[in-house]
């Protein structure tokens, strides 16, 4: 038992960190960035070359064949850099294509050639051999594919399967958002939860992304508290601020530890994976939302502006909360999950 990263894992993280610092600095969202959306899809072919898109896809399917633990630490970095969550669509979409035996699609997804947006149910929706219901499409405007996922399984749909597509103004303006409907459509590929526990994996990856958000906001608040002076002292010397930063550190650490345990139970095919995956999403979303709020508070008035990056993390934390089952929904699942002691 050891929750620390191995040397190989540290190396993977360092490579990715270096790449994202160069290619996806958080400053990319500052003016004159486009008003809505982002250009992160341009990074997909290069992330594919570096082996990140297929990191947890088995080698025989063209992936790197590492475990969900490596995938988890990768998503933590994605979160830190506010990478477009469309990457979840590409990476989990590749799992669906692999399980469904669609080699051409799998290749397009693993190489970063085909873009996949995310379909998130608004109200009741059915995902299975036949899909229906009302959805939000996230980051899907120029994507030919849409990934939808719930407790029954995961489905890859064509964007053209959706009707009544209507662009709406997003809360998180770094991501595009549309409303759309599905009327009893057979998805291009469908994988049930029994075949591959993609939903549990999604919870761990969304959770890991949220860990990155919680850590980034903690670091931002701490750095600011060290340099911002009032009453002749750095504000971080005041307990009101210091303790807020400490709370942010406690939440980020608890979320990271739970994400580590959840990813390991998943890769071990442990029956507790469902319990720990749900706990992972709950704990890390709570940490991401609270840390993002407190980061704004520590920054004071500048935290309330669009010049500081603080608001981006808050908005993204809400997106990750809503994606494939919000806190209210996950709590209900948590209450009924078989106890993993």
């Amino acid at each position, binding site marked *: 038992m050891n929750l*620390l990263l191995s040397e190989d894992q540290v190396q993977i993280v360092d490579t990715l960190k270096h790449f994202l610092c160069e290619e996806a600095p958080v400053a990319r969202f500052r003016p004159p960035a486009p008003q809505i959306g982002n250009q992160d899809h341009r990074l997909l072919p290069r992330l594919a070359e570096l082996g990140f898109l297929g990191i947890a896809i088995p080698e025989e399917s063209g992936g790197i064949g590492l475990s969900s633990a490596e995938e988890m630490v990768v998503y933590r970095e994605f979160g830190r850099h506010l990478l477009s969550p469309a990457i979840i669509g590409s990476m989990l979409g590749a799992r669906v294509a692999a399980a469904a035996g669609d080699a051409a699609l799998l290749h397009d997804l693993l190489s970063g050639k085909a873009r996949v947006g995310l379909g998130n149910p608004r109200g009741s929706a059915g995902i299975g051999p036949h899909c229906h219901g009302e959805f939000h499409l996230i980051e899907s405007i120029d994507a030919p594919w849409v990934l939808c996922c719930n407790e029954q399984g995961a489905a890859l749909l064509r964007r053209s399967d959706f009707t009544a597509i209507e662009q709406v103004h997003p809360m998180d303006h770094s991501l595009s958002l549309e409303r759309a409907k599905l009327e009893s459509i057979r998805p291009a590929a469908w994988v049930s939860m029994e075949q591959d526990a993609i939903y549990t994996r999604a919870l761990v990856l969304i959770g890991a992304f949220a860990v990155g958000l919680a850590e980034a906001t903690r670091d931002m608040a701490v750095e600011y508290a060290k340099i911002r002076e009032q009453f002749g002292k750095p504000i971080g010397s005041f307990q009101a601020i210091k303790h807020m930063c400490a709370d942010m550190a406690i939440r980020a650490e608890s979320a990271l530890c739970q994400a580590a345990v959840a990813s390991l139970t998943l890769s071990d095919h442990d029956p507790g994976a469902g319990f720990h995956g749900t706990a992972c999403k709950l*704990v890390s979303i709570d940490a991401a939302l609270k840390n993002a709020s407190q980061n704004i508070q520590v920054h004071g008035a500048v935290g309330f502006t669009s010049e500081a990056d603080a608001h981006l993390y808050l908005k993204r934390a809400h997106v990750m909360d809503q994606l494939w089952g919000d806190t209210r929904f996950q709590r209900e699942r948590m209450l009924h999950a078989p106890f993993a*002691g």
Partner: protein
Amino acid sequence: MDLQFSREDRVFREEARDWLNSNSPIERRPHAGQTMREFDLAWQKRQYEGGWAGVSWQKEYGGLGLSLTRQLIWHEEYARADAPDNHLCFVALNHAGPTIMARGSEVQKQEHLQKILSGQTIWCQGFSEPNAGSDLGSLKTSARIDGDHLVVNGSKIWTSHGHLSDWQELLVRTDPQAPKHKGISWVICDMKSPGITLRPIEIMTSPNQVHFVQCFYDDVRIPLANVVGAVNDGWNVAMSTLGFERGTAQIRDMIRYAFLLEKMIGKAQQRLGADCPLSKDEIGARLAQLRADMAAARAMTYMVVSRAQAGISGSESSLMRAMVGETQQRARRLALDILGPYALENPEDDDWVYYYLRSFSITIAAGTAQIQRNIIGERVLGLPR
């Protein structure tokens, strides 16, 4: 990263489980008084005779000298077997014993270590004073050297189980001129010494519940040979073992609480009835979030062990302590809300109300939640003092 245990570790787990299942006391642990003392000593003695005492103690002092992983497994199995915590032995096993092992003389080791391990002596802690709580370094209880003795005057407070103890690990000021952390000594004090008087202090759980005492020292003579480490080096001696309180033992608590939470879910379902499903009630939402947060708190104990194994343990363990303490406190409060009107009853044979009241100490004892946050802010995050 991995969650797997080696084959040898799994064998050890089986043995620990078997032994605990057939040897752990079944009768209820008394909450107070001499009967509690006898209960705790007897259970410690049984562990000693069974060859399971002192999992973390080095072999040369009679312990099992086990790796951190084995300690973790022992605590997990201890909690799973629902074995009672012998709290009265806590200071001896986790503070006084390890301190004597690390810094004591041969004579001190001979005299005390085996008696602690075999359940013959109870120790208490004499650190806090009426005016030195969070600011422990400003303690004032004085000790003047007189020949081959120290003469102690002053007062200690919040001494848990002081009235049931044989020995005390006592911090005294031996050099009033030195800077505050430099003039302190760590002394072994016989609680039966002439000149010690104890004032019992009732705690908020229920009338007549004496958990700790205030100790008054009136020209108490303690042999100089009872100083552990050097005279005036007591702060360092004390700091050398404070980490023991933050180690693997927390895992035991977290597992206990995880089981408690399962009982709480059952009780809440029973109380709300089939007409009002728990998942639609705010209690259900709180139970669910707590279940998740407790899983995370336990994961944090795994991280602390992982760091310690890699030799990089430090102030980061305060993150875990803060989380563990607060989830436990939340659980106790939630248990009360599940009881509804029955929360007003505090029966002898049920623990929920008693432990709710007791839970207020969790964020005060052994460094308040606020001191923890100062440590996190300054030592983990590098914020200015």
